[in-house]
């Protein structure tokens, strides 16, 4: 009897391992990330090619308005986008996906001869640098302030910080950026705002020299401050509520009863458990900051990827626009994936869900 039932319930070993692979946390997350990228690439294809009033049609109209013949306009638009317009839409779509996988996004319409990929690779490091640095500062500072708020709850310092956090959380990064320029740069004259335009001073040689590092910091500091101010509010509030919740847990009471020092309880018990859920917010924060970078980099003329997107939009440079948008999305999706992996690594409970049961 028992042998029969086991042979019925245990699936084929190959099927079983396949099922294990499919239910593996890491692989499932990777699959989802790839699906997201495919989904966005498909939207982008529709926008540039298949939608009524799509980018290629507009580009062709634009070129014919400049006196280019209809035939030439069609060829030029197709060449810029790297799409063969004579093929059926289905194979155009496959070609497009193939190009995207190879990192080929066509050529710029306004900056003649420049490939979109080249334009992106020159600006991307600046955004990664400024967004990454601000994310680390915000995370550390937000956790520290949130913990202080929780430990000092219902004192004046908690009320002050909570109100500050709620206000910063409610105002858009763009307004904070404008206010920063207005007050720090113009009214109080704390920073030379005009000299800070661009991501580094002209003639500066990139390298690990002190002068270069000082120069890029000079250019990035106000932008960094605005990024931190605009996203720290939600971190503080979240950390406060997590810490308050953790402080009420039984294991914290037990730790107190055991006579552990406050410092040890804070680092080994409260801090760890309260910080853990914030890693999922890290991913949301990346998207938020990168989205805000389109406005803020433009406001500060900081030559990153958001600045490039804003410029390609104002110049109606469609090949650049779609390429930059895809790269922004892919970066955010992979940042999400990374945050999930870090979370899974830090919190074993997550990994086990759907794993071996």
């Amino acid at each position: 009897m028992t042998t029969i039932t086991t042979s019925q319930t245990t699936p084929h070993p190959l099927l079983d391992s396949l099922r294990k692979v499919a239910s593996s946390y890491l692989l499932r997350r990777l699959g989802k990330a790839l699906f997201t990228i495919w989904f966005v690439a498909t939207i982008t294809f529709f926008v540039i090619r298949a939608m009524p009033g799509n980018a290629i049609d507009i580009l062709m109209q634009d070129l014919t308005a400049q006196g280019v013949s209809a035939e030439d306009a069609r060829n030029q638009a197709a060449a810029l986008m790297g799409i063969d317009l004579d093929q059926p839409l289905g194979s155009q779509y496959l070609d497009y996906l193939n190009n995207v996988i190879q990192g080929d996004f066509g050529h710029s319409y306004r900056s003649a001869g420049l490939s979109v990929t080249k334009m992106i690779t020159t600006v991307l490091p600046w955004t990664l640098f400024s967004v990454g640095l601000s994310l680390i500062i915000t995370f550390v500072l937000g956790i520290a302030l949130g913990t202080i708020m929780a430990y000092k709850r219902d004192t004046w310092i908690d009320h002050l910080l909570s109100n500050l956090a709620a206000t910063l959380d409610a105002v858009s990064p763009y307004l904070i950026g404008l206010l920063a320029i207005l007050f720090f740069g113009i009214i109080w004259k704390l920073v030379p705002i005009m000299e800070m335009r661009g991501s580094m001073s002209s003639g500066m040689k990139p390298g690990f020299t002190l002068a270069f590092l000082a120069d890029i910091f000079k250019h990035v500091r106000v932008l960094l401050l605005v990024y931190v101010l605009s996203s720290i509010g939600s971190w503080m509030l979240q950390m406060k509520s997590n810490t308050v919740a953790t402080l009420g847990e039984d294991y914290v009471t037990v730790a107190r009863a055991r006579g552990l020092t406050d410092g040890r309880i804070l680092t080994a018990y409260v801090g760890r458990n309260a910080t853990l859920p914030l890693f999922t917010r890290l991913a949301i924060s990346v998207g938020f900051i990168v989205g805000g970078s389109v406005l803020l980099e433009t406001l500060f003329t900081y030559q990153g990827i958001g600045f490039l997107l804003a410029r390609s939009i104002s110049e109606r440079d469609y090949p650049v626009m779609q390429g930059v948008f895809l790269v922004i999305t892919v970066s955010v999706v992979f940042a999400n994936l990374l945050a999930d992996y870090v979370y899974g690594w830090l919190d074993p409970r997550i990994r086990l869900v759907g794993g071996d049961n």
Partner: protein
Amino acid sequence: MHTSKSSVPDFLSGFWRESIKTLKILSRNKMGLFGFIMMILIILLSFVGPLIWPPETSANVAEINKGVSAKHWLGTDFQGQDNLRKIINGGKDIVTIALITGVLSMLIAVVVGSFSAFIGGRVDSLLMEFVNIWLTIPKFPLLAVLATVLSLKDVIMLSVLMALLDWPALARQVRSQVLSLKNREYIEAATMLDLGTPRIIFRELLPNMMSFIAISTIFEMTHAIYQQTGLVFLGIVPYSSANWGVMISAAERRGVLFNPQAAWSILAPMGAIVLFQLALVSFARSLDEVFNPRLRTGV
């Protein structure tokens, strides 16, 4: 059902009684009352104000970038036009965008989110999987690219586009709210009475999450205002009409930001946006007391 037809006056007086009761409850909460009055004032001023103080048609060279004075309460801009008058004339677009985007996206979110929670199973997990994927896509760049290619003509089209992009996040919140309410006794009772899913959702569930819906709608409204301001700054939404976003962007473009004298041209529209947001949020917070009778005990 036929009683509702014959007793229209009854229904009306009931409506008035309810409204007065609501106002009374509102007036107990000072922040809420402030928010409510401020909100009504801003909306009235934005729609009626332009009839009383129409926009200035010509530039006033003698009064460019003046500070605050008795004549110009909020100073003048780079064309010498009065900032206060511009703010009165620039509110209509902002209020319209906020209302349409907020209400429309919440409407979609409530329908999708609550049905998803009720149906459950594969439909629910598929929908939520889609929502999660949607949430990882950076929304502002997507909005900017779509708005550019679609070259939207008016405020309503823009609001609809924003609502279509923003509802999934709200739907997820609605779903989790519904899931937490679903196991309450009165919902189980309604399910056992076989009242039908739509009736349970609209008559039993939604009234119990009205304050949550109101607050989420209002957060979406302020989000929409900021997105519109950003689109104006990028030059995607045309400069056809004066609104607060256009005022900020125009001041920025004219280098007003580098002229301390003209700070008011940029602070005034910003202040208007923040004040409207503050009014909405404090009104929404007080709504909790209106919708939740248990909070009214301290009368």
